[in-house]
């Protein structure tokens, strides 16, 4: 379906990634945002709080990130598209209710404009070290979806995709920007509303007597409803059966949690998204995401000038991971090179999928800046040998 034009600021703009992300959310139909100020993400909610009153949206600055995420999960059960925005320390606090969102199968979007960590770390400087936290940060087993934009334009485009995926799969979607993209100002083109395709959850048309909140087969997504429509349903963070009633047993855990994992794993082919460039015949494939993807391009150009056959794979959806594609490439290339602004997170996934058939070389960076392309070049040259 087409989006509500009220939230679409059609035109050509000069925006930083944070503003572009805020505009993308509003263009996607987001009408509830709860957040707590934290650098370097605050500009997203500043943008939204200025624009929401003209389109019927509600922004509330909560007392902390625990409350922000809880309010988002609550508001999502009214059918409203919801989002919260944060950075590392706040992301840690949100993990509790991200887990609740996963368990209740609640569509919503969590933006993390990543800075250097751990703890308070580097508030104003970039990092990509929360990428594993986006996947594993809340306790227990579940699968979520994470996206990583490389530019303000993509912050706009991809956050719409993040909402679409959350509506489609009934999961919190992690929108993993990094400070560089958040604070980088570039041209952002916002298309007319009629060109913006959105996905909206379809409410169940079953009667309250027939409806069960968690009725599904296999990788199916259960039909959703919302509060206030007469269903008088129950949902819980406890392990629950089809009715949404708590059942404390290994059998019910298998029914419930297996589904949380399978609905993403078994639909991964439809969710996974990446760009590829000159992969055929490559000796080395560089895999990167976010701002690091842009730095990597320079290193790749330098390597190609030296005659090395380098392919490039840019992860747009980081989780679920493009396992199938990397397994295909493994054995056909000499090595994978994985630069990222952390001490080795996504590289471990690449190494797992390469399964010893190709060498995997990480190019770590602790944060506070981006890689020197020379360092990535050196890793490429090493892997090509």
């Amino acid at each position, binding site marked *: 379906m087409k989006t*509500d034009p*009220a939230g679409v600021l059609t035109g050509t703009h000069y925006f930083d990634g944070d503003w572009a992300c805020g505009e993308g959310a509003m263009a996607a*139909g987001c*009408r*509830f945002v*709860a957040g707590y100020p934290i650098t370097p993400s605050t500009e997203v909610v500043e943008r939204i709080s200025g624009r929401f*009153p*003209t*389109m*019927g949206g*509600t922004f*509330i600055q*909560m*007392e*902390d990130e*625990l*409350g*922000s995420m*809880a*309010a*988002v*999960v*609550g*508001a*999502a*059960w*009214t*059918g*409203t*598209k*919801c989002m919260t925005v944060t950075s590392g320390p706040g992301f840690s606090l949100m993990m*509790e*209710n991200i*887990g*609740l969102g996963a368990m*209740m199968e609640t569509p919503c979007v969590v933006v993390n404009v990543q800075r250097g960590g751990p703890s308070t770390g580097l508030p104003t400087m970039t990092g990509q070290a929360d990428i594993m936290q986006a996947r594993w940060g809340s306790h227990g087993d579940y699968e979520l979806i994470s996206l990583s934009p490389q530019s303000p334009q993509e912050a706009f485009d991809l956050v719409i995709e993040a909402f679409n995926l959350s509506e489609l799969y009934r999961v919190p979607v992690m929108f993993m920007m990094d400070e560089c993209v958040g604070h980088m100002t570039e041209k952002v083109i916002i298309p007319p509303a009629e060109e913006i395709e959105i996905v*909206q*959850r379809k*409410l169940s048309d079953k009667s309250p007597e027939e409806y069960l909140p968690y009725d599904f087969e296999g990788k199916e997504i259960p039909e959703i409803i*919302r*509060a*206030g*429509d*007469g*269903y*008088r*349903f*129950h*949902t*819980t*963070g*406890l392990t629950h059966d089809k*009715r949404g*009633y*708590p059942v404390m047993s290994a059998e019910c855990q298998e029914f419930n949690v297996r589904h949380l994992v399978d609905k993403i794993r078994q639909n991964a082919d439809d969710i996974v998204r990446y760009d590829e460039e000159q992969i055929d015949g490559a000796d080395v494939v560089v895999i990167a995401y976010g701002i690091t993807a842009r730095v990597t391009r320079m290193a790749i150009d330098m390597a190609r000038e030296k005659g090395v056959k380098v392919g490039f794979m840019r992860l747009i959806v980081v989780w679920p991971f493009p396992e199938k594609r990397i397994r295909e490439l493994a054995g056909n290339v000499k090595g994978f090179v994985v630069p990222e602004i952390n001490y080795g997170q996504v590289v471990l996934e690449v190494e797992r999928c390469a399964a010893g058939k190709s060498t995997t070389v990480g190019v770590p960076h602790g944060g506070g800046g981006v890689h020197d392309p020379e360092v990535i070049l050196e890793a490429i040259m090493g892997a090509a040998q």
Partner: protein
Amino acid sequence: MSNVKQKVRAEEAEHPIAPYLRMDRIPHIWCPTCGIGTVVKCYATALEEAEVDLDKTAIISGIGCTGRVAGYMKLDAFHTTHGRAIPFGTGLKLGRPELNVTVFSGDGDLVGIGGNHFIHAARRNIDLLVILVNNFIYAMTGGQNAPTTPLVARSSTMPFGNYEAPFNIPNLAKCCGATYVARWTCLHIRRVTKAFREALGKKGFRVIEVITPCATLYSRLNKLGTGLDLMKFYHDEADICHGADTRDVEIDFQSRIVCGKFVDEEKPTFSERREEHYRNKLGDDFVGMPSEGGWLHE
């Protein structure tokens, strides 16, 4: 003979509040002589008496013994995370303003782990009815010290008696801006029901504290006897004092419990203030929330 006949009829009859409960989840998990069930009965009766539209009523609980209440009510019901029932309810209320939202949870949940949300929701005057069941202890996890445990009372983590000052909940609520504040014990069934009924008809951040016996833990650890003994204690020591200064209603170990309605005032809610403010500032450019139906576009 007539007694026997009546008994048979009583067994066949549906419980008066059955339509408000998920009868397929009964029996509940609460211990014999726990007071939570009584508070649930009062709430269901109040819903009936206040003629609330049940299709537009949502209930949210956190975690703990009282945290299980949402699970038994036949309403749109959310059993959430520990301490987060108030912010969850805030999202639900702001997302669909025509909902009546009740947060029904315990003392540890609402003023312990959820204390920050409690004070800020009161400050903002979020339109929520908060039913706070206070049993003076973390009961679900085995009787640990709570922010409400009276001084010197024993708990499983204060085996030599509590030395931390407890919260005076009515005073906390009032000082933070709550528009309706009352306290009763679960002995006061009619008064609790009346308070719920009255508060259901009002707006703003409304807090009703209900003192309940926990015979399994609080009473056992403090050698206070059975649940019935505690009810007798409430009977003897509850002092009804409407309009009391909330600074004077703190609860000491096994001493007077001041009950009554302490605050009942009208103040604009968060949403009313917000809307009025934006109308003043933005004029016709302001677009409010849809008053009904929320934001889902079909």
